[in-house]
């Protein structure tokens, strides 16, 4: 049997890593809901949730428990299978991106080196891009199968928004690719770590800005949360959803936020690199732990900025959204790309 001629330990190692990363992102998404409410409260001179446990830290558990015990409703006129498939797709695509993010360098367990990345594929950045373009299916399927005109409107809005902003996102990444010359996220991080190289944000500030705005739009976060605009579309694409299916949609939003923050930290802010610290002098396990902490700190900072923006800005109008996407961000990204290309060429020549 050739099937057994396989490094089973490798498989176990990867499965454990996948389990750890998925449960970590679920935990972080849970507490992101809590911090969302806390940050909103602080910015509005309020206190926020503080009833469940000390400082309300058990609030996410209470919310989850509440969602679990709610009645599951599938509308009569809904397309049953697609109605169930929608939240699953949303959750799946939110989770899938975490596969290519390098969470740390590597740890040494009894002589066996374990890379803290599920898959170091040589097309890492394109993989992210592919999964992001899939994120819209959860919204579209859910919105359409609900058989509700508000949900359908939200689904169409979501689809057009995600497609529009994907272009600018891709163009901003192309400029970054010209500098790094590699699509593998691990290589990109190692380049930023290597001596004498600054983080990519120093070379690509405009690219980062465009990427950030597009990430807001792709996560359907305010000020681009048109698919779930409460004031115009009731609840948007998840209006007919209840119980844990609704919970999946809400959760997927926070996981998306966490993953895209991690991607921004990886691509532009050195990933698991700690500035002014030479990791090679340290014990590799300690260095890996410091790296994970550094990446998480950067990620949490971006999550905070996402929330900060949400609780500051009102929602853009639909025509403004399209205007920003097509007439501002894409030309800006093109200009950024051309300038980067010229500079790279001049430095080579």
């Amino acid at each position, binding site marked *: 049997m050739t099937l057994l001629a396989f490094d089973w330990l490798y498989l176990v190692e990867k499965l454990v890593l996948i389990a750890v990363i998925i449960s970590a992102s679920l935990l972080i998404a849970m507490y992101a809901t809590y911090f969302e409410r806390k940050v909103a409260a602080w910015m509005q001179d309020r*206190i926020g949730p503080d009833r469940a446990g000390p400082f309300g830290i058990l609030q996410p558990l209470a919310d989850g428990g509440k969602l679990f015990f709610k009645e599951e409703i599938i509308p009569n006129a809904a397309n049953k299978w697609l109605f169930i498939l929608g939240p699953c797709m949303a959750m799946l695509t939110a989770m899938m991106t975490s596969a290519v993010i390098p969470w740390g360098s590597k740890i040494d367990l009894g002589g066996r080196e374990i890379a803290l990345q599920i898959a170091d594929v040589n097309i890492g950045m394109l993989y992210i891009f592919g999964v992001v373009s899939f994120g819209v299916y959860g919204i579209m399927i859910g919105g359409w199968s609900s058989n509700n005109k508000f949900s359908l409107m939200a689904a169409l809005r979501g689809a057009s928004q995600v497609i529009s902003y994907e272009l600018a996102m891709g163009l901003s990444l192309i400029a970054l690719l010209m500098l790094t010359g590699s699509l593998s996220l691990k290589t990109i991080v190692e380049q930023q770590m290597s001596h004498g190289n600054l983080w990519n944000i120093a070379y690509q500030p405009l690219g980062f800005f465009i990427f950030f705005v597009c990430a807001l739009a792709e996560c359907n976060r305010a000020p681009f949360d048109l698919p779930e605009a409460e004031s115009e579309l009731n609840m948007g694409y998840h209006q007919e959803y209840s119980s844990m299916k609704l919970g999946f949609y809400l959760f997927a939003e926070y996981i998306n936020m966490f993953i895209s923050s991690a991607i921004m930290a990886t691509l532009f802010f050195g990933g698991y690199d700690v500035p002014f610290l030479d990791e090679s002098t340290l014990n590799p396990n300690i260095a890996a732990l410091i790296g994970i902490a550094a990446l998480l700190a950067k990620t949490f900072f971006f999550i905070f900025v996402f929330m900060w*923006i949400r609780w500051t800005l009102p929602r853009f109008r639909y025509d403004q959204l399209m205007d920003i996407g097509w007439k501002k961000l894409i030309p800006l990204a093109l200009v950024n790309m051309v300038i980067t290309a010229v500079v790279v060429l001049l430095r080579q020549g």
Partner: protein
Amino acid sequence: MQSLTNRAKPVDRRPMNFMERMYLPAVLKGMSITFSHMFKKAPTVRYPDETRPFSPVFRGLHVLNRDEEGRERCTACGLCAVACPAEAITMEAAERKQGEENLYREEKYAAKYEINMLRCIFCGLCEEACPKDAIYLSETFAPSNFARKGFIYGKKDLLIPDPKTEAADLAKAKGTN
């Protein structure tokens, strides 16, 4: 049109200039405002845990008073019911029997005394009308209830604890332990 207060500001309807169309300066300004609010003290009062003190003239739920020996002061004269603009008070009078002198101060007393707290407007006119100092407005307000019936307060809800037999309860109700 003649303006009433001269405080109206005309709306600027000029098309946005370049800086405004970039949205960014306004975005950054807004974000700095929200950030500065993160460090402000929240004026929240955590209500069930903390309560704000009432002012001394606060008019809350009614109480029916007793004298120092624990006898009911009310004589069911009906002046409070007459004074009540919301017609929230009803009562039935009865004559004091032999051996009840330790319960009621005068020969006549209120066998039934009801205030409908949903009608009451807490104006305090009953308090002023009472010649016997029998009715007072306290510093609490009506707790919520599931039925309308629960808001019709009878004598057992209104009477203060007897200072002789239930002195501890009275001290607790007054807040002077």
